[in-house]
């Protein structure tokens, strides 16, 4: 079509700024400020897409976020592509690419259209009733077929090149909606001294009043649009008012926590968008909220009411008055109320042919009189019974309605048209109100749900509160806002409003037809193709609740979230069931109000910022020495240090040998460190650890095991007594934060009487752990003033020291079984300390080793790792650590749980060693252990928790937990793998130096 439908001038578009865009491969033109919908309509394009189920041709119905049909794929196949975008909301930009969805090969000719012909056999919920026989066809044929037919648009297949951001906003008053009531509310609020935020989803403020040029609608003797324009001008100068346009409220949570999406780029051409933010999510905390979200027009439900060219009357008005676009040359307006007459008059003024079909008997309002005077033909008491035209409406058939409106009489009248503007009255947008927890009430006079009781500090004004006429809107908005904000201002008190409409409308949910319902297609949900028939079928089958009917028929489950469909569904249900509509309740409106991009919700928390990275003071050294890193919680820990073309295994074997044969060094800075002070420190440790602490000598270290109250091992580590009332506790890397808060919890809530103070010093100290036969010699070089002989500095003791005048703590403790020392120093010196150790150790071939080697070395010694050898089901007894559980102590965390019938069982899973019959065979960690493979069901005795090839023993070793393991020592067991079964023997779990001679070597 080459005809230009941009009929009239409009001040809302920048006519000097002509823009080209591509739709279904064809180039079209529009103007800056056009939506894709208005631009397409100006080119005479109505056919936009195909419906989900029957693949019926569909066009543009509305001009806003309620649009069910005109949803397109934006941005071609590139990385900017986006499915299911409403043509009625997308602003055009130079080079915009858009294409129809859910059709193949083209929207003009779509193979899926076949569904329309089999539609009699596939009513609502048909798939629940079939595809069950034969069973195997379900898997091979039916289910794949159903899955193939899924979806509308296409998911992107490339990462998103654009950026998103978040920001928190705290204000006194948030006004949602920039229509006339929102403007008035914002103005009153700001003048009242509240810091106020006004958000509106459009690119220009003023809602539908901004293009209301009818002389009949006057405010203070000015045309309403003129008056509003002045109001907008003056609120823009208010200091304490922030106005955010192209910003739509997505969700309204409790405690007045609201999420709003600000659109910064979607209206700009791609080359203007590089490295800029696309959208920003505002996380708003408002003391008070004023909702002015407006109302949307209802469609009318009659046979074949879904053809391209069937549009909401108010939208047709916006297209002509705001965008200067006519939606057809021959318009029929089909209505049950006065507001559609505004559309008729607007069209008529622009010289466009209009006929009106009104289901009412009459209306005495000025507006209707004007229409008559303009010579517009009105069919009173008539209804549309059918429409014709496949890809665009061509004609309609109307009939007279019977007295009671339940039937049609007389003969059909055929009206030729290329546009049918329908108006079924108005539905207040109470979605956000209900999201916030507000309860609705029902108004019978015009069959609308209205805000009733709110759970948060907020009010609703304007048409979302059920005021549909200008005079009510303005007067109530003013008085409600003033009392809500307890404003004493007298502004607007004397406002004069004239509004010529009659407020009664005649509401018929499902219009009568000459054909039986079964032979007609009166659509409710245009996107999901659910009809009034489907609703009645669902109810016939026993589905009563609105939620059931909705789910069974998929009504309101589309991307428009049923903004158009839900009320009629409710209406038809209540009529059919013969119950009052108010008593039915509504479906729950779930956030978001309009669909929200994942990227927007996530903001900058992608890639680098997906999660925190914690680094030790020596991190750069590890990097410079080619360390591979392991994620431990949020920490990056050196895992192993491969030499050129060394495999992980080779590196670990080398590191392990070096540590035992001469010297190794480990970065242990990530271990949690808690400074404990106070006169009750010892008593406190007695209560939180399983063993006794009071007698620990000053300057001595002790290993401790911490349980949960349920008796299961929770954490472990070495704690040092620095002085009478001063300890330093170390925790596992992953446990640090939890242990500290657990200990604080007990101190604050259970034992407030204890004089104990905890302070985390995890990040304050860097820790280098030097181990191996030569560790002593290395430390001697670094700390010449300290005597490192066993008398002066025995195992499990500590010394204060100085290094170049810097204070250090040295603990002689060992997690490897080797003679070894842990040096703690202020973290700013950590890297330097490490380098000093490396220098001093050079002559002894000191070898840096990572967590993997550490794990191997400790496994040779049978030391457990909490979280690897335990899984929250192991008691100290299970770990054969009875020695650490004080029998004398009256109580400690978890003690009581050790004496329950199950925890006392002799044959619980217990920690043991496993040796493979083939010493070179290394078991897989996690492998299961059995005694008898044949027995069915096979009994699993336990599993392998740690497993390595020990270079120092030159054989494979493993730790495992095995049912009744203590008693099985020496016995043969089996480890069944997928492809083979490995023979193992239960052994002691200390494989290396079980006399601990090396500790003092």
């Amino acid at each position, binding site marked *: 079509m080459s005809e230009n439908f941009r009929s009239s001038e409009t001040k809302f578009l920048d006519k000097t700024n002509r823009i080209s865009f591509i739709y279904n491969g064809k180039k079209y033109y529009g103007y800056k400020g056009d939506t894709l919908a208005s631009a397409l309509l100006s080119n005479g394009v109505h056919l936009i897409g195909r419906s989900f189920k029957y693949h019926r041709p569909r066009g543009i119905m509305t001009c806003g976020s309620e649009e069910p049909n005109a949803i397109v794929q934006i941005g071609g196949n590139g990385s900017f592509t986006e499915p299911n975008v409403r043509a009625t909301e997308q602003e055009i930009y130079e080079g915009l690419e858009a294409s129809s969805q859910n059709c193949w090969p083209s929207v003009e000719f779509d193979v899926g259209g076949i569904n329309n012909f089999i539609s009699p056999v*596939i009513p609502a919920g048909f798939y629940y009733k079939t595809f069950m026989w034969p069973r195997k066809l379900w898997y091979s044929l039916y289910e794949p077929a159903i899955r193939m037919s899924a979806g509308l648009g296409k998911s992107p297949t490339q990462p998103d090149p654009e950026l998103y951001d978040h920001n928190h906003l705290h204000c006194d008053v948030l006004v949602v909606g920039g229509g006339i009531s929102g403007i008035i509310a914002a103005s009153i609020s700001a003048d009242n001294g509240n810091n106020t935020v006004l958000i509106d989803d459009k690119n220009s403020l003023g809602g539908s009043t901004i293009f209301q040029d009818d002389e009949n609608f006057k405010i203070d003797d000015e045309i309403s649009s003129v008056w509003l324009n002045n109001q907008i001008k003056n609120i823009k100068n208010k200091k304490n008012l922030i106005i955010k346009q192209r910003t739509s409220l997505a969700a309204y949570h409790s405690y007045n926590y609201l999420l709003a999406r600000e659109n910064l780029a979607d209206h700009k051409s791609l080359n203007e968008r590089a490295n800029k933010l696309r959208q920003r999510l505002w996380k708003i905390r408002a003391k008070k909220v004023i909702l002015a979200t407006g109302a949307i027009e209802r469609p009318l439900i009659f046979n074949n009411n879904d053809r391209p060219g069937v549009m909401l009357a108010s939208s047709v008005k916006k297209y002509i008055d705001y965008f200067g676009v006519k939606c057809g040359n021959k318009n029929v307006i089909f209505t049950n109320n006065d507001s559609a007459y505004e559309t008729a008059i607007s069209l008529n003024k622009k010289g466009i042919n209009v006929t009106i079909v009104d289901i009412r008997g009459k209306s005495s309002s000025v507006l209707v009189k004007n229409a008559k005077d303009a010579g517009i033909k009105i069919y009173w008491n008539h209804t549309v019974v059918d429409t014709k035209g496949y890809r665009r409406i061509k004609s309609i058939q109307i009939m007279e309605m019977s007295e009671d409106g339940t039937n049609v009489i007389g003969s059909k009248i055929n009206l030729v048209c290329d546009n049918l503007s329908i108006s079924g009255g108005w539905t207040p947008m109470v979605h956000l109100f209900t999201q916030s927890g507000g309860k609705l009430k029902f108004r019978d006079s015009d069959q609308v749900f209205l805000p009733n009781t709110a759970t948060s500090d907020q009010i609703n004004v304007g048409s979302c509160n059920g005021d549909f006429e200008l005079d009510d809107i303005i007067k109530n908005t003013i008085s409600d806002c003033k009392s809500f904000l307890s404003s004493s201002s007298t502004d607007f008190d004397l406002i004069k409003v004239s509004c010529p409409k009659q407020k009664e409308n005649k509401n018929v949910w499902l219009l009568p037809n000459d054909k039986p319902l079964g032979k007609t297609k009166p659509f409710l949900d245009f996107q999901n193709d659910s009809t009034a028939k489907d609703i009645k079928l669902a109810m016939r089958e026993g589905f*009563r609740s609105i939620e059931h009917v909705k789910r069974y028929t998929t009504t309101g489950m589309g991307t428009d979230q049923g903004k158009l469909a839900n009320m009629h569904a409710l209406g038809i249900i209540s009529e059919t069931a013969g119950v009052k509509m108010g008593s039915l309740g509504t479906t729950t409106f779930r956030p978001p109000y309009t669909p929200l991009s994942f990227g927007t919700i996530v903001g900058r928390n992608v890639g680098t910022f997906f999660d925190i990275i914690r680094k030790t003071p020596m991190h750069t050294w590890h990097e410079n020495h080619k360390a591979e890193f392991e994620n431990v919680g949020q920490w990056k820990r050196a895992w192993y240090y491969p030499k050129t073309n060394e495999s992980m295994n080779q590196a670990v074997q080398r590191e392990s040998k070096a540590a035992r044969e001469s010297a190794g060094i480990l970065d242990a800075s990530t271990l949690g460190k808690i400074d404990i002070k106070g006169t009750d420190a010892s008593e406190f440790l007695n209560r939180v650890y399983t063993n006794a602490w009071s007698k620990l000598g000053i300057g001595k270290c002790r290993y401790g095991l911490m349980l949960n109250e349920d008796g299961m091992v929770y954490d472990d580590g070495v704690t040092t007594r620095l002085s009478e009332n001063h300890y330093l506790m170390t925790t596992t890397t992953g446990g640090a934060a939890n242990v500290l808060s657990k200990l604080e919890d007990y101190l604050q809530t259970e034992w407030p009487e204890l004089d104990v103070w905890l302070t985390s010093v995890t990040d304050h100290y860097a820790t280098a752990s030097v181990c191996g036969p030569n560790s002593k010699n290395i430390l001697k070089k670094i700390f010449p003033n300290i005597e490192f002989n066993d008398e002066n500095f025995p195992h499990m003791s500590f010394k204060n020291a100085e290094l170049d005048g810097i204070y250090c703590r040295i603990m002689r403790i060992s997690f490897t079984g080797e003679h070894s020392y842990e040096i703690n120093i202020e973290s700013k010196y950590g890297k330097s300390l490490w380098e000093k150790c490396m220098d001093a150790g050079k002559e002894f071939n000191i070898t840096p080793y990572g967590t993997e080697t550490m794990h191997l070395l400790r496994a040779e010694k049978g030391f457990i790792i909490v979280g690897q050898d335990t899984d929250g089901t192991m008691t100290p007894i299970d770990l054969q650590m009875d020695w650490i559980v004080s029998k004398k102590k009256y109580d400690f965390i978890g003690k009581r749980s050790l004496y329950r019938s199950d925890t006392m069982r002799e044959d619980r899973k217990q920690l043991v060693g496993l040796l493979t019959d083939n010493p070179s065979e290394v078991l897989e960690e996690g492998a299961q252990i059995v005694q008898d493979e044949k027995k069915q069901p096979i009994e699993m005795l336990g599993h392998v928790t740690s497993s390595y090839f020990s270079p120092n023993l030159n054989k494979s070793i493993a730790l495992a937990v095995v049912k009744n393991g203590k008693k099985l020592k020496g016995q043969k067991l089996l480890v069944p793998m997928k492809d083979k079964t490995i023979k193992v023997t239960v052994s002691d779990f200390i494989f290396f130096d079980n006399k601990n001679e090396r500790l003092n070597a």
Partner: protein
Amino acid sequence: MKNNYSIFSLIKNSLTYHENWQQAWRDPEPKKEYDAVIIGGGGHGLATAFYLAKKHNMKNIAVVEKGWIGGGNTGRNTTIIRSNYLWDASAGLYDHALKLWENLSQEINYNVMFSQRGVMNLAHNLQDVRDLKRRTHANRLNGIDAVWLSTEEVKNFCPIINTSPDIRYPVLGGTLQRRAGTARHDAVAWGYARGADSMGVDIIQNCEVKAIKRSGDAVEGLETTKGFIKTKKIGVVAAGHSSVIANMAGIRLPLESKPLQALVSEPVKPIINTVVMSNAVHAYVSQSDKGELVIGAGTDAYVSYTQRGSHDVVEGTLKAILELYPIFSRMKMLRQWGGIVDICPDASPIVSKTSIKGLYFNCGWGTGGFKATPGSGDLFAHTIANDEPHVLNAAFNINRFVSGDLVDEHGAAAVAH
């Protein structure tokens, strides 16, 4: 059985414009007395009634539901079905359920759209790898079809996952259970309801329980908004509201009811053909037959009966989704909602008798109850009918919290090294 569902019945009824379909279930008033009453008309409750009638010939029974059947967690979950659990007891329970799923549509003549598209669990750190391998070995020996996948195999099975080694928590591998998948949640409730109803079970909606009547330590009946109902056996399947009923009966349960959230995207053409779960990077995703991405978020840490959770949980989940699937950044969230899940300290359910004679509880399913629906119903029916547990649910008794013999499915809940 009422009139059979099939393609032929559809064609036949299309000739009469589908005017002659029968009600899927009746809408009866409660009788004075039943042999047993099930509290809770969700999937588990309706399945229980179905199997009581079918297998134990208890047909004079009722299901009382305070709202609408299937309106609770059944209609709110992300419909993941799998049986690759660690402990024998759990594996037995969930695989029993999975076997029932495989024939369920035929058994109840209602297509529950059970789709065995496979469920993949990803590992993101070394302990994940140990835990998942441990589970896979246990599954294999328990006859459950779980296999370990290398990172490459993960990529091959679901190409859109970002398996780059450069992401914050790279995918180090995963497990796959091919028999696992999804089903249509509403259909499960509706199908069981229709099946039970056709055997004479009364399904009474909008009937809220107000009190449990006891004489001594045995139940006598229940006070409801539709009057008193006499019965000697009460099976409570009230999910998030289990504790509310327990308080009526004067017993305490080791439960906390917390918000669990989920969301769906707008529908798109098929893009992900399996179910992918990741615990370390908390994100579960699959694609519904309508084309929506169905995404499970986490629970909040506090008790709430509001069916709303905090936004941070949703943000955290989508953050994880974009880490694993960067291509979804421009997809849009269409709907977000919450349910109330009742969680046991050991993350395993309670399907058990109680200290009160004739009072049985089926609860504590936490975040994963849907997958167990048929098995849970079958075993709970057995427990009620015989007044003693089936071997498959014996381990899930209430007494385990006293003895300490828990079924700890947190896996390696303990801290990492």
